[in-house]
């Protein structure tokens, strides 16, 4: 095939939302490099979900179907996808950067003596370069710095796409045939046993419905300081939310966590207080209409996504905002 293969994630017959962004990435890079684009979904009984992709502009959709792929395991997915890649020999293999992909894609790349360029946030084409001319942008140091990375040696070249790097609404429609394949997979090749999925508690707070959110991060320093931001939330009529470390410490309940492991929100106004802006947090809130950031560090990545920012000590800035709101 020697084109681009987008390996998409589905869970119980539903495509992961980042699957569409990975597909958009494959279409866009395919157009830029003049390469045909293919998609693959793995699972048990995945023909139906593969058919839902038949309306997109793709050369073919591979439905990789096996009873042993009913429940995701890194061993099962690696064995099955390795066969797909060795049979069809794509030049690029593109994944959405999901938790599941983080679990198996490095293993798959290693099995083929390659390195996955994980969590890419951008790309450009530079035809003079090795690796097919594709240069990828990754974040280093939690978003403080960027790096340009390219591939060396022979394909396949593996990359995973961070949420928001490509837009699903740019997907081009068309018609594509679905081809079902059954990989050669034996029960003894799967060493881990996945058990039930569960949630810790019912979500009491639906942050997705909030019009204004005040969100607090490590900058708050201590649990005793939470009322400082609660007062701001009250003054704005906002829901209070937090970045991961705050919920891990038990300073706020887990159902108030925003980010890749918590809720994804897009309120009218999002006020990030003492949040540096690691990518895991940004993916959960960067769709907000207006973003305000308050942080001591002028280089904090949160200022990259902010519309309005104040560099300063939150313990001075937050009370000052509450005062200003009274006027």
């Amino acid at each position, binding site marked *: 095939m020697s084109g681009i293969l987008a390996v998409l994630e589905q869970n119980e017959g539903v495509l992961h939302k980042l699957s569409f962004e990975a597909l958009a990435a494959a279409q866009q890079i395919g157009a830029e490099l003049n390469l045909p684009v293919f998609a693959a979904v793995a699972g048990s009984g995945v023909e139906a979900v593969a058919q839902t992709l038949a309306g997109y502009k793709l050369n073919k959709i591979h439905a990789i179907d096996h009873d042993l792929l009913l429940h995701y395991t890194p061993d099962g997915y690696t064995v099955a996808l390795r066969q797909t890649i060795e049979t069809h020999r794509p030049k690029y293999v593109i994944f959405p950067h999901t938790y599941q992909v983080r679990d198996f894609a490095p293993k798959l790349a290693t099995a083929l003596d390659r390195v996955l360029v994980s969590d890419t946030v951008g790309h450009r084409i530079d035809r003079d370069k090795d690796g097919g001319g594709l240069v990828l942008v990754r974040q280093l140091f939690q978003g403080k710095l960027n790096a340009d990375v390219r591939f060396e040696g022979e394909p396949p070249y593996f990359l995973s796409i961070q949420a928001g790097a490509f837009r699903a609404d740019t997907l081009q429609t068309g018609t594509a045939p679905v081809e079902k394949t059954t990989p050669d997979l034996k029960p003894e090749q799967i060493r881990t046993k996945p058990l039930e999925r569960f949630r810790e508690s019912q979500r009491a707070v639906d942050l997705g419905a909030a019009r204004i959110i005040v969100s607090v991060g490590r900058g708050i320093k201590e649990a005793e300081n939470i009322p400082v931001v609660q007062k701001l939330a009250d003054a704005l009529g906002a829901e209070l939310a937090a970045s991961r470390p705050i919920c891990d410490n038990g300073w706020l309940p887990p159902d108030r966590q925003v980010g*890749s492991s918590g809720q994804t929100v897009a309120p009218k106004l999002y006020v990030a207080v003492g949040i540096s802006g690691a990518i895991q947090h940004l993916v959960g809130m960067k769709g907000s209409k207006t973003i305000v950031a308050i942080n001591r560090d002028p280089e904090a990545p949160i200022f990259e996504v902010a519309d309005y920012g104040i560099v300063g000590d939150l313990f001075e800035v937050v009370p000052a905002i509450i005062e200003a709101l009274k006027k």
Partner: protein
Amino acid sequence: MKIVAAIKQVPSRDSQLKVNASATWIEESDLDWEINEADAYALEVGLQLKEKAAGEVVVLCAGPAGAAQTIREALAKGADRAIHIEMEREASDPLALARMMAKALETEKPDLVLTGLQSDDLGYGQTGVILAETMGLPHATIVMNIEAVMNIEAEGSTIKVKRELEDGWFQHVEIPLPALLTIQSGATKLRYATLMGIKKAKTREVRRISAAELSAALPPSIRVERVYTPEKTKRAWIFDGPAKEGAAQLVEKLRFEARVL
């Protein structure tokens, strides 16, 4: 049970970073260093398991001579001994690094290898998984904790772990030992080193291996071309001055420009 905890030394969280002259890495002088956050939790999970199941915890760390400080701190917390792969820091490739780590562990034959799920510097989030594949071990990523160790005669030991999935979901997974887990931050409390621990750490063995001894010299499959400060793409209003003035201007702008209040 023999447990290996792989840890990395990274610049401390609030460091102001500068790109070096050749734009290949950061300027390392004048920085403070600390254990990578998720690795501190990997070490903690290892120490807790040792307390329950008996055995030893071996720390594995790749880094320059200065990483010895982070290794000593891990020994002071209760690790029994350490392996230090001596190498310069760079924007390295996780496959090359994991292959060196696997080679350094060849004679160890651990029952369980623990790593943090991701480093705060390069952030590939892959070294653990690649190490598992290179060592031929089953793995689980983004593990919160080990919930049970089950010994089944004739079949060996199996552990039951709690993995984090997306959107507030979790999953239990059973894995036969030997295995590798990558550990998520935050699921347990980290211990502090005791005075006794700090004293004992000085007597504990640190095996030093040079990277050259371990390097397989395989051609790299990726190359970091350039490290740089991201360009500001969004034209934001950023105020850096007296808090009261900033707050007043911000509220004004939210009311009359963004019209969100």
